[in-house]
């Protein structure tokens, strides 16, 4: 696939995978208002994914559609950050069963939206006018996601002893996955060179500041990184993505020719 398409897929896959995860809380949230808030985040992300897939399909031509891209690519073809495919609980293998943990959900939404407010901001200047327009829309939505998750991060960290422990555990679990943000995939490199994409590396100080400030306010500690840098954005995922996609794509794939 050509550069801008690969880059658009990275952005779209991020959005659809995290949208899928956030929607899992629907009907199971800790309080009705949060059910609705996460449904809203999910809706925004699915909406972003649709626009991005549509643009990618347009560039790809042929019989490509948003749904072909979302439903008929395998896990190794997905280009999302590994962070976004993880289930809502601590580190466990792909076929473990466990209760959902809201701290994991909130911390992940925070870490991702803290990056994406800067990414969308920068992409408003993309040489791809469609992408620039999507970025402007997404920036507004993502700012809300950031506010929402940051507020809860602070509440949890500076709440009760239990909520602090859970939030810290989620931070410890998820923070290593953010290292993937700072590597440059071929798709990103080419998109930056073509002035379509944004150099995420340059956003690191801003992200660090945002994260460190929020963690400090939440009385949480940022763990040191020493570990494995995930490679979801080049298609090397965790064991969790194939389950997520299996569930998401199963019905569509059972009826390959169908229109819905």
């Amino acid at each position, binding site marked *: 696939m050509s550069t801008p398409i690969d880059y658009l897929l990275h952005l779209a896959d991020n959005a659809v995978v995290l949208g899928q995860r956030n929607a899992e809380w629907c009907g199971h*949230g800790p309080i009705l208002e949060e059910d609705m808030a996460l*449904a809203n985040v999910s809706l925004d992300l699915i909406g972003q994914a649709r626009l991005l897939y549509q643009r990618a399909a347009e560039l790809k031509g042929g019989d490509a559609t948003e749904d072909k891209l979302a439903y008929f690519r395998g896990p190794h073809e997905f280009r999302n950050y590994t962070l976004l495919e993880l289930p809502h609980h601590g580190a466990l293998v792909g076929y473990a069963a466990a209760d959902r943990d809201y701290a994991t959900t909130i911390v992940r939404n925070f870490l991702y939206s803290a990056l994406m407010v800067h990414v969308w901001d920068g992409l408003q200047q993309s040489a791809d006018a469609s992408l620039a327009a999507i970025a402007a829309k997404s920036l507004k939505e993502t700012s809300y996601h950031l506010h929402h998750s940051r507020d809860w991060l602070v509440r949890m960290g500076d709440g009760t002893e239990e909520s602090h422990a859970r939030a810290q555990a989620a931070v410890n679990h998820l923070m290593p996955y953010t290292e993937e943000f700072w590597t440059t995939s071929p798709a990103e490199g080419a998109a930056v060179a073509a002035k379509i994409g944004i150099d995420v590396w340059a956003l690191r100080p801003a992200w660090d500041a945002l994260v460190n400030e929020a963690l400090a306010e939440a009385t949480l500690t940022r763990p040191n990184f020493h570990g494995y840098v995930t490679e979801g954005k080049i298609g090397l995922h965790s064991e969790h993505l194939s389950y997520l996609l299996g569930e998401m794509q199963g019905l569509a794939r059972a009826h390959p020719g169908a229109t819905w």
Partner: protein
Amino acid sequence: SEQEAAFEARIDADGRIEPQDWMPEAYRKTLVRQISQHAHSEIVGMLPEGNWISRAPSLKRKAILIAKVQDEGGHGLYLYSAAETLGTSRDQMLEGLHSGKAKYSSIFNYPTLNWADVGVIGWLVDGAAIMNQVPLCRCSYGPYARAMVRVCKEESFHQRQGYEALLVMMKGTDEQRAMVQDAVNRYWWKCLAMFGPPDADSPHSAQGMRWGIKRISNDDLRQKFIDATVPQAKVLGVTLPDPDLKWNEARGHYDYGQIDWAEFWNTVEGNGPCNNERLATRVKAHNDGQWVRDAAQAYARKQKERALKEAA
């Protein structure tokens, strides 16, 4: 009493009762029961449809479904708020739900078994709900009536969306059409039962009518629903699973077969296929979320204390 006379006069004049107005205890209790039951139905009703969000077969349908389930949560919120104006807190109402004392619409005690169930719930379940709810927009209790205006508007939108999704499926593959027919077969009779027992067996209705809480009888609403739905089913191309369903020229209405009230009551009493699952899921969500709500409260308290300290 004078208050009682004023209340009765207002009701007779089709006027609105507002939270600050005096009202008989029985009126208040009836309303709290009905509104909270309605709110619970919205919340529990998120589960059968929520069951298909992760598997929606297109991104467009996924977004529509999330938005719909989110709207149901919103309806729950308005309705809990309306009930709170009557002096009962949301926590109290939830306690009623979780302990099994409060009811919710029994239609949500049936499973959603294929994707077409989502469309059928929109078309038939929401359709029946709207029939029930439109008269409530003229309910004598102001906050409830106003909440229902908003709810009905959104429900009509959902109903059209559900029907439209089914139209697309019926134009699709044989398997898609079979899914729709299967869903209709499973939901049709349950939807007819949603209007409640026949008027002859519905002793509470009279007082509700008197108070302007209920406006149209169960059987009349049911007939209205059937008359409206049969032509829609024809356009859609599905068969409604009732061999007795036919136009009665004399009555100017459709005749229909016997509803299985034993099954209905059994489900209302807690013995439907999903009663345990629905309720246990709500209780688990509430219990699992306790630490989150505790955190928010603890944080709010700390913030207040900090503000006080700073002010001192």
